[in-house]
């Protein structure tokens, strides 16, 4: 039975042949073909039982053509020759029907290094294995008179890009992610894990963390809103970093004068260094972007100073420099995007971050974060599933979830310590962050 569930991705030679035929058949001045294929499954559980359990096999064939200073893009989720003819014709038709305009240049060939991101074990994961994993978490919760909720997914994917200037890139990857909320009568806890190899996720370790958090987070009492010293766990730091990327790390945001980044100036505390690196295997590596440009490491904030931005072909041309390999699929009016983010670790064991705090708040994770003011890096959101009062260097009791409204740069300017370990957090859509927990001097809770 196992063979039925093994990932069914199209053979690499077949993908290459398909893309070659697309480039040969195209009558455009320039042509780009992107094939993205995935085979994934997700087991969802609630109230200590599986309630949704799904699998999907899909592909996207995306063609960009440039003809007579006009660009057209079309896509289809089929890999047949008939589909290829259809998608080429539609892309050319779109190009023909529009006025000549600014053309985003296609990149020329440049080799991207191979980075390991594949696990046969993840690709061959079965529904029975996912069910057994979920059962272990649910049984552990039930033993503690708690209820478990969450999702466990495994999947494999490949991305290939070729263009008529000679670019050809291909990358295969797998990913396993699990998240869990465990609830009691009067409170809950949260935990998640992500890995390229499903065998690196320890179900007992996850169950221990989330059950312990849920047990401690019962009967929370309100605490007065205000400015508190805080410890943010990696879950919260990861979300904060993703919002920094949305708001400010893109060259387009800077070119449109809406980014908080002021290159060369100190914008956070000296302990903060943030970079993007698609080649680091401790993240979720991706060696090239959606334009086929090899990824470069970009130092975004170095010891508190804004030092870099990420570029795609369009923003790079405007800036008179090369793309850093952070382009999104064409057509893209949103600009480049940093999706392989890292924050430098500190030197303090995570559990000792609270040591010097007289009165503060411990935050497990954020929820429903939204941008309030991008240039001032102000976000709002709620805490969720594990908010605790810290008194005299110890966690003393759970507190009701709080709303915060806070400038990220201001918060990071008051960085007092970072944990010496970091945690990988997979993004909901693509990419990931690897971050430490942080101890901040001031964080504003508004209700």
């Amino acid at each position, binding site marked *: 039975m196992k063979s039925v569930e093994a990932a069914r991705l199209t053979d690499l030679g077949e993908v290459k042949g398909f893309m070659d035929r697309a480039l040969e058949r195209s009558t455009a001045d320039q042509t780009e073909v992107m094939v993205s294929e995935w085979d994934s499954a997700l087991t969802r559980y609630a109230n200590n039982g599986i309630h949704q359990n799904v699998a*999907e096999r899909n592909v996207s064939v995306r063609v960009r053509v440039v003809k007579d200073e006009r660009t057209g893009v079309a896509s289809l989720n089929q890999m047949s020759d008939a589909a290829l003819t259809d998608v080429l014709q539609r892309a050319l038709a779109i190009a023909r029907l529009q006025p000549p305009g600014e053309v985003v240049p296609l990149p020329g060939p440049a080799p991207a290094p191979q980075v390991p991101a594949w696990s046969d074990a993840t690709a061959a994961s079965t*529904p029975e294995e996912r069910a057994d994993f979920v059962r272990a978490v649910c049984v552990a919760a039930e033993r503690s008179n708690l209820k478990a909720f969450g999702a466990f997914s495994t999947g494999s994917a490949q991305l290939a890009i070729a263009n008529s200037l000679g670019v050809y890139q291909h990358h295969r990857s797998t990913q396993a992610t699990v998240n869990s909320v465990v609830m009691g009568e009067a409170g809950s806890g949260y935990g998640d894990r992500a890995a390229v190899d499903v065998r690196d996720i320890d179900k007992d370790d996850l169950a221990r963390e989330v059950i312990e958090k849920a047990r401690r987070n019962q009967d929370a009492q309100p605490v007065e809103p205000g400015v508190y010293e805080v410890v943010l766990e990696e879950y919260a730091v990861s979300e904060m970093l993703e919002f920094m990327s949305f708001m400010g790390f893109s060259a387009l945001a800077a070119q449109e*004068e*809406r980014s908080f980044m002021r290159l060369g100036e100190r914008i956070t505390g000296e302990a903060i260094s943030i970079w993007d690196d698609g080649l680091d295997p401790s993240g979720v590596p991706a060696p090239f972007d959606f334009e086929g440009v090899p990824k470069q490491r970009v130092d975004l904030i170095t010891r508190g100073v804004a030092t870099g931005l990420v570029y795609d072909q369009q923003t790079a041309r405007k800036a008179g420099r090369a793309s850093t390999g952070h382009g999104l699929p064409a057509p893209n009016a949103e600009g480049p995007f940093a999706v392989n983010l890292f924050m430098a670790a500190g030197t303090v064991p995570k559990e000792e971050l609270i040591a010097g705090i007289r009165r503060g708040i411990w935050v497990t994770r954020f929820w429903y974060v939204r941008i309030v*003011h991008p240039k001032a890096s102000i976000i709002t959101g709620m805490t969720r599933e594990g908010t605790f009062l810290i008194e005299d260097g110890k966690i003393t009791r759970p507190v009701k979830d709080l709303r915060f409204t806070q400038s990220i740069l201001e918060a990071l300017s008051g960085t007092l310590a970072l944990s010496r370990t970091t945690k990988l957090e997979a993004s909901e859509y693509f990419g990931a962050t690897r971050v430490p927990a942080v101890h901040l001097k001031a964080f504003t809770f508004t209700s």
Partner: protein
Amino acid sequence: MKDIADAALNAAQVKGAGYADVRISQRVQQDLVVKNGQLAAVSDDASQGFGVRVLVDGAWGFAGSARLDREEVEEVVNRAVRIARASARVQSQRVDLGPPVNSRGRYTTPIQRDPFAVPLSEKVELLLRADAAMGAVKGVTVREGSMEFIRDSKLFASTEGAFTEQDLYESGAGIEATATNPDDVQNRSYPNSFGRHQGAGGYEYIEGLELDRHAGRIAEESVALLSAAQCPSGVKTLILDASQVALQVHESCGHPTELDRVFGTEAAYAGTSFMTPEKLNKLRYGSPAVTITADAMTPTGLGTFGWDDEGVPAQRSHLVKDGLFVGYLTSRETARVLGQESNGTMRADGWNRIPLIRMTNVSLQPGSATLEEMISEVKDGVYMETNRSWSIDDRRLNFQFGTQLAYEIVDGRRGRILKNATYAGITPEFWNSCDAVAGKDEWRVWGLANCGKGQPPQVAHVAHGAAPARFRNVKVGILK
């Protein structure tokens, strides 16, 4: 396609499914973006495939594939059945769907101009005209306009005998002007934020928006906001424009009345709900001015269809009646738990996703006031318009919203323009403070094409009828 559907249902029954349904869909989508006087993006996307949902031993399994052939049908059904058997190993209770559903028929969104037959040049010219009008205003740094058109052709069939076919059309467009200085960025959009205003309809929906007529105004407002006063902090009377009321309904009534959330099936992701079953017909959700309905037959609503993705016919029901919480959005499975029948709100984001309970057209019913009357009765307040930020807790109680534009209200008149306006509250307290809702003339259906829920993530297109409304004693100006 009928042969594929029949083959899938037969195979599922042979392999032991007690119930099975299959959805086959072909979806085409065209997107255009004009930015700073240039056509920045045009794309033409298509997706087709099928998904099979089975119940085996009272447990769910689902699999889908983009390959529409007999061999793949067999493989996908095998996969769905195997997944269902794995689900049965860790099951808290057997699924009960209640009475069978055997709807049959065809539904097509009423359209006057097929958006896919309208020349690309006509669409681009309209966006460029609006862009030029925004560009004529000094101080605007970024202008953007977009359009989106969707045709989703869906077939649904089940082992209970349901067989429905639908062709659903959507058309949407919007424009936005951004003004910046070294310390600030302010934007204004029309008709709504979130990129576009979208509705179920043809190109006539776009023509009715008159994008070019409003372009200059929003551009001027974006520039004026840079030098506007900060929204003051305090507890004041708040008047919201209809689009912001629509979002408030979405977040604080639509989501918490989704019965799957109430039962915990979204607990690890989208969250749960404070509107639990023991509060049904007891909770004073809002003031008597507040009546909220779910209606899948509202003209131009993105939640308008013939049948939901379980084959249940489109219908109308009350969620809140004269302020009292009276109903949920339900599916066959969740309604059964309350001894009810589904009110038809299950929708999937494509062939490759299972249906979830999603809002249809969840609307605040119009009152009898007018916006100007409401303003004239306020001594000290703030009027806010067009959403800029939105956040609410996982039980849908504690919210904070920000808007692009605001005006102070002093002694019954609009005063200064205000920027960075925010307001916050607790859902039942907020709706109970509602003392006026504008009437039918100012009531409009607002489409939201970005409603997220589920794992794997799904995006639903939903709508909300709303009119301007007034709320007393609201905390405003949270931003320092």
